[in-house]
C-alpha cells in the first residue's frame, strides 16, 4: 500500500520527534540498529553476478554485466567500472519514468566511490591489452521497492553481487571463466540527524523528517573509503566523528553476518 508522499501530518511529525526525545523509534529499534537484512545471490540469471537485497521493506536487485572494451584514454592500463542506479517507477509513488535524476545519480556515484576508493576490485588485473582491451564492469542498481535507506541497501547489494561475479572469458574466447577478484568489502552506512540524535538506517518516514542525511563508507580494515552529506542542516565535528564510529561498527556487523566467505 502506498503512503502519501506529499505532506506529513504535523501531529505525526510531533509524535516521531517526541519518541526520539524519549530515546525511541516508531518501529522499536535502537538508534544504531539496522532493520532485517536478507541477501540472495544469482537471482538475475543473465547477469555475470547479481544480488537481491532486502533491507526492511526496501528491495533492490543489483546486476553485474561484464564485457571487453576499450579503456579510458587517460588510464589505458586498468579496467573500467560504470555504476548506474535506476529508481524505477514501480518502486515508489514519487518515481517517474525517464532518465536518472539527481537522486538516482547521487546513489550511483556514492556506491561507485565506495567500491573504487576501497580498491575492492583490482582494476589493473582487468587489463588485457594495454590501451586496447580491458574488462568493463557495469554495476546496475535496480530499485524495486523503496522502503527507506536506499543507499545502504544498494551498497550492500553491489558488493554482494560483485562477490558472486564471474569474468565471462569463455564467451569472448579470452580463456577460462574465473571469479572476479574482489579484495575488500566496502559498505555504506547512512545516518540522519533528528531531534538532536544520530539515527542509523532511517526508515521511509524517518528519511523524510531528516534535515540532513550522512553516509559513511567503511572497508574491511575500518578505513573510510567515501562519504556524503546530503541535505541542508549542518553537522558538528563531534556528530561527524560519532557517525564515522557508528558506521564502522554497523558495517563490521553486516560484513560478518552476510558477506564474509
Amino acid at each position, binding site marked *: 500500500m*502506498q503512503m502519501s508522499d506529499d505532506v506529513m501530518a504535523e501531529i505525526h511529525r510531533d509524535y516521531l520527534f517526541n519518541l526520539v526525545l524519549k530515546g525511541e523509534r516508531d518501529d522499536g529499534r535502537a538508534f544504531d540498529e539496522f532493520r532485517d537484512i536478507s541477501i540472495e545471490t544469482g537471482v*538475475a540469471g*543473465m547477469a555475470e553476478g547479481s544480488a537481491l537485497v532486502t533491507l526492511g521493506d526496501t528491495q533492490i536487485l543489483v546486476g553485474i554485466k561484464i564485457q571487453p572494451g576499450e579503456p579510458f584514454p587517460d588510464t589505458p592500463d586498468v579496467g573500467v567500472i560504470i555504476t548506474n542506479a535506476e529508481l524505477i517507477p514501480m518502486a515508489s509513488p514519487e518515481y517517474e519514468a525517464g532518465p536518472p535524476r539527481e537522486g538516482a545519480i547521487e546513489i550511483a556515484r556514492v556506491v561507485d566511490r565506495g567500491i573504487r576508493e576501497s580498491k575492492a576490485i583490482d582494476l589493473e588485473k582487468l587489463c588485457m591489452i594495454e590501451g586496447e582491451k580491458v574488462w568493463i564492469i557495469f554495476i546496475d542498481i*535496480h530499485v524495486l521497492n523503496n522502503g527507506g535507506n536506499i543507499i545502504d541497501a544498494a551498497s550492500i547489494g553491489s558488493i554482494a553481487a560483485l562477490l558472486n561475479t564471474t569474468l565471462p572469458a569463455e564467451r569472448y574466447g579470452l580463456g577460462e571463466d574465473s571469479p572476479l577478484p574482489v579484495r575488500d568489502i566496502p559498505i555504506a552506512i547512512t545516518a540522519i540527524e533528528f531531534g538532536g540524535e544520530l539515527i542509523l538506517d532511517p526508515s521511509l518516514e524517518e528519511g523524510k523528517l531528516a534535515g540532513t542525511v550522512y553516509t559513511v563508507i567503511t572497508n574491511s580494515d575500518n578505513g573510510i573509503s567515501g562519504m556524503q552529506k546530503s541535505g541542508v542542516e549542518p553537522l558538528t565535528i563531534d556528530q561527524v566523528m560519532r557517525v564515522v564510529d557508528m558506521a564502522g561498527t554497523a558495517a563490521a556487523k553486516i560484513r560478518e553476518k552476510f558477506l564474509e566467505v
Partner: protein
Amino acid sequence: MSEKPEHFIIDGKRLDGRRVDELRSVKIKLSPLDRADGSCYIEWGRNKIMAAVYGPRELHPRHRQNMTKAVVQYRYNMAAFSVSDRIRPGHSRRSIEISKVGRDAFEYVVFTKFFPKTAIDVFIEVLQADAGTRTAGINAASLALADAGIPMRGLVSACAVGKVDGEIVLDLMKEEDNFGEADVPVAMAAGGKITHLQMDGHLTRDEFYEALKLAKIGCDKVYKLQRQALIEKYSGDYAENGEDAITQSEGDADE
C-alpha cells in the same frame, strides 16, 4: 548468437522436453512489493518478471487527464542485466511498442469510467529474459491489477504460439523464437475476446487459424494458473468451496 538447431521436435518432444501444446513451468507470487497498490512476480520458464500497479491515482500533467474516465498507462521495461548483452537503460523502440500494445490489451477490460481524471499505471520490469516476456508481462499485469482492487471485466491471459519443424507450437522458448518460422503473441479476456495480437514471421491462412485455436487453449491454461494464484493467496481460514459456486463462463472464439 548460438547456432540454429537441426531439429526442434524429435519424437513429439521439443528441445526442453515439452509437447507441442505444453506451457513452460510457471511460478507466481502475489504482492511482493509494498509501496505499489498491487504487484505480482512471475517466473515463466527462465523469465523473471515483476509487475506493479499504481492507481487509480492523480494523473500528471493535467492536460492529459480525461474528464470521463481513467487513463491506463502501461510501461514495459527491461533491466540492463536481463539479457546476455547488456541493454543501455532507457526506452528502446521495441519497449515503446510493447508498452503501447500492452496498454491496448488492458484498455478493454478495465472499468475506467469509474475513475475520471485519474491514471491507472501498470509497470512491467523484466529482470531475466528468455523469450515470451511480453506475454508473461501481460499475465503478471492482470494479477497486479486484481491485487490492486482495480475493477475489470475479467483477467487477461496471454501466451505466444509459433511454428517450428512444420508444427504449430505453444509458448515459444528462446531457440524457437529466434529460429522458428513465426511468433504470434496473443492475449485473451473472458469470452475468448482477443485484446492483444501480433505476428512476426510467416504462416498460411490455415496455419494461422490453427495457431489461434492453440493460443486459445494456451490462454485457458494460463487463466487457470492466474485464478489459482489469486485464490491461494487468501486460502488460510478460507477454504475454497469444493462445489465451486463460482464458475468462469465458457468462451467461444467465434463470438
